[in-house]
C-alpha cells in the first residue's frame, strides 16, 4: 500500500531547532510583561535619592586628610549646602586647642526646666525640625530622689518650676571613657584631645551601635531626611560640628564645637535664663568650672557607677 502524500512536516519538533512565529511572540510577550512587572515592583527604590556624590564616596578618613584634601571637602560641603538651601555657609575644620579640656557643670539648684537650652541648641546646630532631633532632654524628677525611673520628659505645665520637682537636663556627657567610641565598627566617632567626642557624618554607616552603647540616651539617629527651613540655617558651620547631616547618620551634642573651639560659650549656656549652666577649661585653675569643682557640692556624674567618667558634672549650690 502506498503511503498517502502528506504535507511536508517540520523536520524536528518545535523548540529543538529554531522557533516558530507563534511561540516567539508568546515568549516575548511573557518576557516583556515580566520585565514590566519587575520594574513596577521595584518602584519604591525611586524614593532612594540621597546617594552620596562620587567625591564624597571617595573621600578619605578624617584623620588621614591632608590640608589640601580638607579644603576640597569643605568646598564640597559648602557647595552642597548652597545647592540645597540657596545660602552659602562658612564651613571650618576647627582643631582642638592645646592645653584645653572642656568640662560642663550644671547647677541643679538653679535649673527651672524651661527647655530654652533645648531649642537654642536646635537653632545653633542645624538639627532637623521635622522629625525633631534634640540633643538635650530635660528630665523632671520628684524632690528627694535621683531615680531616673521616675523621670518625666514630656511635662507641660502652665508654669515652671513646679512645686515638688527638680529638673535635670541630660545631653552628651563627653565621657573620658566613652562606650560609644568603643563600639563603632568604622571609627567614625572618636574622642578629641580637648575631650569632645565627635562624629564624622561622612564616615558614619548608620549602624546605631553607639546609640545602643550610650547609657545616657545622648545619640540621635536621622531616620528620615532632616528637614530644616533655609531661613533657620546657622551658616557658621564646622566639619565635626553643626554642618547639615544626611539621612542615616548619627549625631549628638559636641559642646557647640563651632563656637567653643574659637573661644565662645556654647549656645545652651548663653540662653539659660537662670545661669544654671557653666562651661570652661578645666585645665585652667582660674576658670569657672575649676572653681565649681573645687568649691561646690558637686553631687554626681550621672551613672557614675558605669565607669564612663563623664566630663559633665551636676552640682548644687547649697
Amino acid at each position: 500500500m502506498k503511503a498517502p502524500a502528506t504535507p511536508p512536516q517540520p523536520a524536528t519538533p518545535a523548540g529543538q531547532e529554531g522557533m516558530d512565529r507563534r511561540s516567539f511572540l508568546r515568549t516575548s510577550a511573557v518576557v516583556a510583561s515580566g520585565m514590566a512587572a519587575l520594574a513596577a515592583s521595584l518602584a519604591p527604590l525611586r524614593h532612594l535619592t540621597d546617594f552620596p556624590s562620587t567625591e564624597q564616596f571617595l573621600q578619605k578618613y578624617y584623620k588621614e586628610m591632608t590640608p589640601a584634601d580638607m579644603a576640597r571637602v569643605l568646598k564640597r560641603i559648602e557647595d552642597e549646602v548652597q545647592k540645597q538651601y540657596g545660602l552659602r555657609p562658612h564651613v571650618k575644620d576647627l582643631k582642638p586647642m592645646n592645653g584645653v579640656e572642656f568640662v560642663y557643670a550644671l547647677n541643679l539648684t538653679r535649673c527651672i526646666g524651661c527647655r530654652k537650652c533645648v531649642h537654642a541648641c536646635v537653632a545653633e546646630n542645624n538639627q532637623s525640625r521635622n522629625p525633631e532631633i534634640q540633643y538635650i532632654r530635660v528630665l523632671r524628677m520628684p524632690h528627694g530622689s535621683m531615680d531616673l525611673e521616675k523621670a518625666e520628659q514630656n511635662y507641660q505645665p502652665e508654669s515652671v518650676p513646679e512645686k515638688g520637682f527638680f529638673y535635670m537636663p541630660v545631653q552628651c556627657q563627653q565621657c573620658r571613657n566613652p562606650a560609644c567610641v568603643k563600639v563603632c565598627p568604622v571609627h567614625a566617632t572618636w574622642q578629641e584631645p580637648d575631650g569632645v567626642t565627635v562624629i564624622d557624618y561622612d564616615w558614619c554607616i548608620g549602624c546605631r551601635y553607639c546609640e545602643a552603647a550610650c547609657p545616657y540616651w545622648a545619640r540621635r539617629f536621622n531616620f528620615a531626611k532632616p528637614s530644616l527651613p533655609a531661613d533657620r540655617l546657622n551658616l557658621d558651620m564646622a566639619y565635626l560640628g553643626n554642618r547639615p547631616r544626611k539621612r542615616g547618620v548619627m549625631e549628638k551634642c559636641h559642646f557647640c564645637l563651632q563656637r567653643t573651639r574659637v573661644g565662645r560659650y556654647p549656645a545652651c549656656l548663653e540662653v539659660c535664663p537662670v545661669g544654671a549652666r557653666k562651661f570652661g577649661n578645666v585645665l585652667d585653675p582660674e576658670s569657672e568650672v575649676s572653681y565649681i569643682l573645687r568649691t561646690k557640692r558637686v553631687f554626681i556624674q550621672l551613672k557614675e557607677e558605669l565607669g564612663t567618667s563623664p566630663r559633665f558634672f551636676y552640682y548644687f549650690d547649697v
Partner: protein
Amino acid sequence: MSNAQKTALVLAGTIAGFLSLALAFSLHLWGETRLPAQIALVDPALLAPTTFRTSYVQMVSAKADLADFDCYGCHEKSKPPTLRFDTNMVIIVPKEHADVVMSHGRHNRNNNCYNCHDEQNLELFQTRDGHPVKFENSPALCGSCHGPTYRDWEAGVHGRTGGYWLASAGERHRQICVDCHNPHNPKIPGRHPFPPPHPLRPNQPTAEIAAHAP
C-alpha cells in the same frame, strides 16, 4: 509535563508575584505613607539671650528714659520721706510706688525701704554699716548681705554668662544682680516652658482609656 510547560509555569508564577507586589505598592497595602507630623517652629526671638528684666545700668547704656530714677523730681531734698506701717507692722507702699512689691526676704523681714535706700539722699543706696553705694554699683550693696553668692558671682559662677570663655578671644559678658533679680521681689518668676519633644507617632490610646476619654 514537558520542560517547556514547566518553564512557562515558573515564568507565569514569577510574573504573577511581581504583579501582585507592584499592585500592593501602588495601593499602599503595607500601611499608608504617613503624612509628616505638623511640628510648630520655635520663634527665634524667644531664644535671644536677653535677661528677665531691664536694670538701671542697662537703661543707662541704652540711653533710655531715666525719669523713674529722678527721685527729687517729686521728693524734697533734705526731707526724708516717712514710712507708714499698717496695724500688723507691714509697710504701706504709697500709690506713687505701686509697682513696688515688698517681697525681699522671708517672713517680712525686709520691711523697711531704708534697709537699702539712703534716706538722706534717695539717689544713693546705703549698706547696713552706713556706706553709701551708687545706683550703678548695686552689686556691692547686694553683696553686703549675700556674701557667699557675691563671692560666687565674682568668680563667674552665680548668674548668667555669655560671649567668650577664652579671654584672649573676646570678652565675657556678665550680668549684675538686678539684671535678673527684681530687688524688691528677687525670686525669679515662673515662666511657660518651651514645648516638649514632639511624639512623632503618639501611642494609640487603649480601649480602656478611649472609653474614659471626654
